């Protein structure tokens, strides 16, 4: 079975690699791959080189100093966190994914003459590519200056991730056994839970003894006490498996690292042995996992509930309204309105509390005000990229849309209406909150007249900026449909990542270019009126800017009509 497992793993990896290499013949994938590779290089490897150069020049290697300072207490702290996660795994519905056999695996392997242990081993081997990749990414992201240190960290992280995956599988299997009718099976399943509970009690008692007698003086004091409480006596023994998994990540020398790896491997081997000896529960657990997977797939296929939206489409009217109604219905059916009401209530309550708080709570008000400002900026500048209930989503339904007797520019405009309205309304709401709390945020020193005029100006340009971005995104969907992920598709690979980066860069560039005429007009109005009305000149300046951008949007939607007419359904990229 191991040979068969390796065969499947190797064939899958090879075919995926072949597919991705083959599609590099197409310029869009090649460009994407170049952009993705450049991003990776400048994000990680160039940083590595810069750090090396800095070290040669004698510059202080801050991350190394920090790692060195934390080295003594870090394994204990991480071990403690791992114990907490291990305990939570029994309470929360954690899934390792190891039991989630795919449909093809269920069809081919379950009826095959192989043991359940062999199936588990197969899944463990199958998961290695993902785990190795995860370990490599975490190793690269480690705040370290040397490639060797990153490699060491990557190996240590791989062992930690592998042990975690196997452990979570063991918990899933044990949970199934706990529900078994066989008393012996149930007793066996209780054993690891009892051992873990005992470890948690021992460590908890030790920490209580360290923290209850005296209040914490500082973070350093807290760290010292945790280190003292977990590095001796029964707590040390109870925490050993968890600390052993963390130790190689923070090891200083080669000897310490190798010793840490050996201990970490022992823990992984113990976890594997535990899971393999509970394999009797595999079929039930796998069936349960398959059911959950099927439910997940079903919910992915249709995350909508047939709830009343309160929106009824009139039988006559403009075509644009049809698209707005359709997108609104989609949004309302995919959003849990009770949760939205709860979130809104919390936001309103927090804002009210922050606003009415006295001086002592001005920090809270400042944080809330800054948060509202950042949220406003996000909603105006980034959210049009995220909210995709427009042509980017409707490319999936292009076959239906194309049969409708609707003018192409009306289709384009209709697709923009709902996301534009939603984002504008959300940004205005956030802006009002930011204005209310502005007295305590970064703009506290700005005079009220300027704050109000600035807020009004932002409110005026918000719809123009939102609709301009949505127009650019929808134009990209119509002109380069193969670059746009369909629905909730998220293409993977270096080339796909590069494509996303190129699209983001192009969108921002186009936004800047499209706003320039409006910004110039606004600037002229501003300089002409500011002598007479002061800060209030921002409002007519914003009106001038928004009007020009608005006209550009309308012209663009008309101009995109022929692109929609020419758009061929075969140009739309389907899932890999």
């Amino acid at each position, binding site marked *: 079975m191991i040979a068969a497992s390796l065969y499947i793993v190797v064939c899958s990896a090879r075919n995926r690699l072949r597919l991705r290499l083959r599609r590099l013949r197409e310029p869009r994938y090649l460009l994407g791959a170049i952009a993705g590779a450049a991003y990776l290089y400048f994000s990680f490897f160039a940083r590595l080189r810069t750090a090396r150069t800095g070290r040669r020049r004698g510059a202080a290697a801050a991350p190394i100093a920090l790692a060195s300072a934390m080295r003594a207490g870090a394994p204990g702290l991480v071990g403690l966190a791992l114990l907490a996660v291990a305990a939570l795994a029994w309470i929360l519905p954690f899934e390792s994914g190891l039991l989630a056999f795919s449909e093809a695996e269920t069809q081919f392997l379950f009826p095959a003459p192989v043991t359940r242990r062999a199936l588990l081993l197969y899944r463990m081997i199958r998961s290695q590519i993902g785990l190795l990749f995860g370990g490599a990414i975490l190793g690269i992201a480690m705040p370290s200056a040397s490639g060797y240190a990153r490699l060491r960290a990557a190996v240590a992280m791989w062992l930690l991730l592998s042990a975690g995956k196997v452990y979570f599988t063991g918990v899933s299997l044990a949970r199934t056994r706990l529900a078994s009718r066989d008393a012996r099976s149930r007793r066996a399943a209780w054993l690891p839970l009892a051992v873990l509970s005992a470890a948690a009690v021992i460590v908890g008692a030790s920490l209580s003894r360290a923290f209850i007698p005296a209040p914490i003086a500082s973070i350093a004091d807290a760290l010292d006490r945790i280190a003292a409480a977990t590095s001796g006596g029964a707590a040390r023994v109870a925490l050993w498996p968890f600390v052993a998994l963390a130790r190689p990540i923070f090891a200083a020398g080669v000897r310490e690292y190798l010793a840490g790896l050996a201990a970490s491997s022992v823990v992984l081997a113990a976890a594997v042995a535990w899971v393999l000896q509970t394999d009797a529960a595999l079929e039930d657990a796998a069936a349960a996992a398959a059911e959950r997977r099927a439910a997940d797939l079903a919910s992915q296929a249709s995350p909508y509930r047939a709830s009343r939206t309160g929106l009824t489409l009139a*039988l006559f009217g403009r075509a644009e309204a049809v698209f707005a109604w359709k997108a609104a219905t989609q949004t309302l*059916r995919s959003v849990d309105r009770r949760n939205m009401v709860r979130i809104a209530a919390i936001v309103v309550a927090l804002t009210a509390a922050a606003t009415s708080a006295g001086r002592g709570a001005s920090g809270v008000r400042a944080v809330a005000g800054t948060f509202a400002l950042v949220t406003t900026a996000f909603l105006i500048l980034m959210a049009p990229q995220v909210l995709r209930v427009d042509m980017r989503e409707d490319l999936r339904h292009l076959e*239906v849309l194309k*049969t409708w007797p609707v003018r192409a520019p009306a289709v384009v405009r209709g697709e923009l209406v709902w996301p534009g309205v939603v984002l504008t309304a959300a940004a205005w709401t956030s802006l009002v909150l930011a204005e209310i709390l502005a007295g305590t945020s970064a703009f506290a020193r700005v005079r009220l007249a300027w704050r109000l005029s600035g807020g009004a100006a932002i409110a005026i340009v918000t719809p123009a900026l939102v609709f301009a971005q949505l127009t650019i995104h929808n134009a990209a969907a119509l002109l380069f449909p193969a670059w746009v992920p369909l629905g909730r598709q998220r293409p993977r690979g270096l080339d796909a990542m590069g494509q996303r980066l190129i699209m983001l860069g192009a969108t921002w560039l186009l936004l800047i270019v499209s706003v320039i005429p409006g910004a110039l007009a606004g600037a002229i109005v501003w300089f002409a009126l500011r002598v007479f009305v002061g800060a209030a000149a921002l409002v007519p300046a914003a009106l001038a800017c928004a009007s020009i951008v608005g006209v550009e949007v309308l012209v663009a939607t008309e101009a995109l009509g022929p692109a929609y007419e020419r758009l061929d*359904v075969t140009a739309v990229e389907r899932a890999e």
Partner: protein
Amino acid sequence: MALAIDHFSRAYQATSGTFTAVDDLSFVVAAGEIVGLIGPNGAGKTTTLRSIAGILRPTSGVVRIDGHDIVADPIEAKRRLAFMPDEPHLFEYLTVAEHLRLVARLYGVDDFDRRAAALLDELELAGKERSLPGELSRGMRQKVVIACGLVREATTLLFDEPLTGLDPVGIRRMRNTIAARAQQGAAILLSSHLLHLVEEVCSRVIIMDRGRKIADGTFEELATRADLAAAGSSLEQIFFRVTGHGA
């Protein structure tokens, strides 16, 4: 003629070069006529139907619905057309009733409520008005697509494998529905691999193979054609002879 196809071709760009799915196809379908479009897999039937419906642009040639060119005058052409594809493609967030209402709005349907109620009854969808597509079986979803096509007064109806996923009762009703629409004056083009269905409901048949039309006529005309006379009298026998797949 309600539907006229004139020297229509459609090619696809593939990594290995250009692939011509339909090559120089011409035919007409008159009002009240039911024409069967048959052929082996890859013959170009679905490409033809999708091009007539305005989903794919013809590479060359002209497609006219009641005299309106689908490329030059798409709004008027599409207004007169109803396409029922083999794969039920619905908006997963709209209910059955909302789909019908959406179509009524797009096509300007008068007397919508009465028509919708009658169609829901006819297609056994009554009681499912508030269901989302995800809650329906494949056959039911197919019926919703057909209901969307029939809720308006289209002069030209295109059916691509209309019986897929339907139960025996649904199949019988669908046959009757197609015949009834033709009697009311609609031009119907029906693509199917079910040769007995084509033989039963169609008054004429077009046989395609490898993107080209290789036969066009009534069953009597095909059966009496000199090169097919020896094949036999059934459509299946004629089909295998004319496509060269029979042995």
